[in-house]
């Protein structure tokens, strides 16, 4: 069987690209062939992802399956819908444009058009799925193919609480909807009240240089010398950040899934998060979830508990491990395989009848 993956865009630090490459490794293990193509390709990704034209008519068999990873507006993908092959769409969710208009107009346009185009795509494919039930329901579907999360690839967690001053971590793009501004404010209040030597580490590629400069200026103004903003870390460096963290603070306003939550659980780092989008589904009972009305003061006090209460840390660690087990790669791989095989089977049956 051949499964061709189609991406809106591909890049070296892009979660969707990472997911597609992980799927490709699985397909290889199942002796399935196919190509991975994208409408927009960051040159740093190399030859692992081919341009969309590689799917030109004649280059793929009629019994092949197309797996569309939809994560951004890409007008060139419309042509893929016209191909006769069976199609599975996985929605990785698109951030509402309202978070970007002020800070990155190009991203805002892509998000606005992408959210408009997504239902059209979902209606045109054979099966529409989401990486979370939240994402799937946005498409009127209940098919969920979660993120293929391989905890072992992240490296081993530390066995004890990290030494040194309390370190609060957030991992995610430096983007308006991730609300690093609120993370900085909550952290700074916590630092002033409970831990003057605490550190905040924000890891994530910025949407643009201007936004990064604005966040750095805010950090320097509110918490000079206590906030580190970094990106482009190697997997080993990122694992090091996780091992030295005492708590993970996610105040994002929009998340389709949020892989760093599972990373935090894997490393045994207590999680404080806002229950938006797919977050409650991923965390289950393993995180401290804020209410939308809870301000900086409540964030600061929750940080103090998450860092300082040994019993709370132990329970969260135990529940986090259960969430990692719930998202083990084997059941996700089985769901993916069953969905694709069912699609291909329908095609074969229909082909036989026709």
């Amino acid at each position, binding site marked *: 069987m051949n499964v061709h993956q189609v991406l809106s865009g591909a890049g070296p630090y892009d979660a969707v690209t990472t997911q597609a490459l992980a799927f490709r490794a699985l397909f290889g293990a199942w002796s399935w062939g196919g190509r991975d193509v994208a409408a927009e390709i960051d040159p740093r990704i190399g030859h692992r992802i081919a341009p969309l034209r590689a799917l030109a008519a004649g280059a793929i068999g009629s019994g092949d399956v197309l797996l569309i990873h939809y994560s951004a507006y890409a007008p060139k993908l419309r042509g893929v819908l016209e191909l006769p092959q069976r199609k599975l769409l996985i929605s990785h969710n698109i951030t509402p444009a309202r978070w970007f208009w002020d*800070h990155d107009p190009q991203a805002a346009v892509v998000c606005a058009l992408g959210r408009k185009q997504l239902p059209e795509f979902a209606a045109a494919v054979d099966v529409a799925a989401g990486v979370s039930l939240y994402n799937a329901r946005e498409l009127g579907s209940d098919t969920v193919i979660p993120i293929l999360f391989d905890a072992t690839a992240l490296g081993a967690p530390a066995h004890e609480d990290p030494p040194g001053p309390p370190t609060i971590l957030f991992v995610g793009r430096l983007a308006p909807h991730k609300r690093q501004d609120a993370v900085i*404010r909550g952290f700074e209040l916590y630092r*002033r009240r409970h831990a003057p030597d605490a550190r905040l580490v924000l890891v994530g590629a910025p949407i*643009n*240089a201007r936004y990064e400069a604005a966040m750095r200026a*805010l950090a320097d103004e509110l918490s000079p010398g206590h906030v580190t903003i970094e990106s482009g870390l190697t997997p080993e460096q990122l694992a090091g950040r996780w091992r030295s963290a005492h708590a993970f603070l996610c105040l994002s306003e929009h998340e389709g899934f949020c892989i760093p939550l599972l990373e935090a659980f894997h490393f045994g780092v207590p999680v404080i998060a806002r229950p938006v989008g797919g977050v409650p589904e991923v965390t289950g009972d393993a*995180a*401290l979830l804020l209410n939308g009305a809870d301000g900086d003061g409540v964030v600061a006090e929750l940080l*103090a508990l998450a860092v300082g209460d040994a019993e709370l840390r132990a329970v969260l660690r135990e529940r986090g491990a259960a969430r990692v087990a719930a998202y083990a790669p084997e059941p996700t791989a089985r769901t993916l395989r069953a969905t694709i095989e069912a699609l291909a089977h329908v095609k074969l049956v229909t082909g036989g009848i026709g």
Partner: protein
Amino acid sequence: MKPEEALGAARAAAARRDDALPPGMTIEPTERVSIEQLMEWAAIEPDPDLMRSTRRLGAPITWAKRQLVHVLRQYLRELQSQQTRFNLNVLIRLAELEDRVARLEQRERERRT
């Protein structure tokens, strides 16, 4: 402490505090873009610093791209001014229409009362 008790405890502790951070930059979503904001955006001014290369060792490519922008500046200014002219005129027309609709709605309300 159990996780289920943590949020309540944090809220109670926060309520006992009266300290707060000085107001600073806060990110808010743009729910509805005002005409004034649109007017500001209509006069397009791309930041040349955003012109860059994402390739490994992309600095020379970034430099070359910026040189190209510099060389083409006369043409790009023309392009910008034509686009801005169109944007602003559409917005002015939109603002006039909004005013007109508001006046008509007001008149209709007065007529009914």
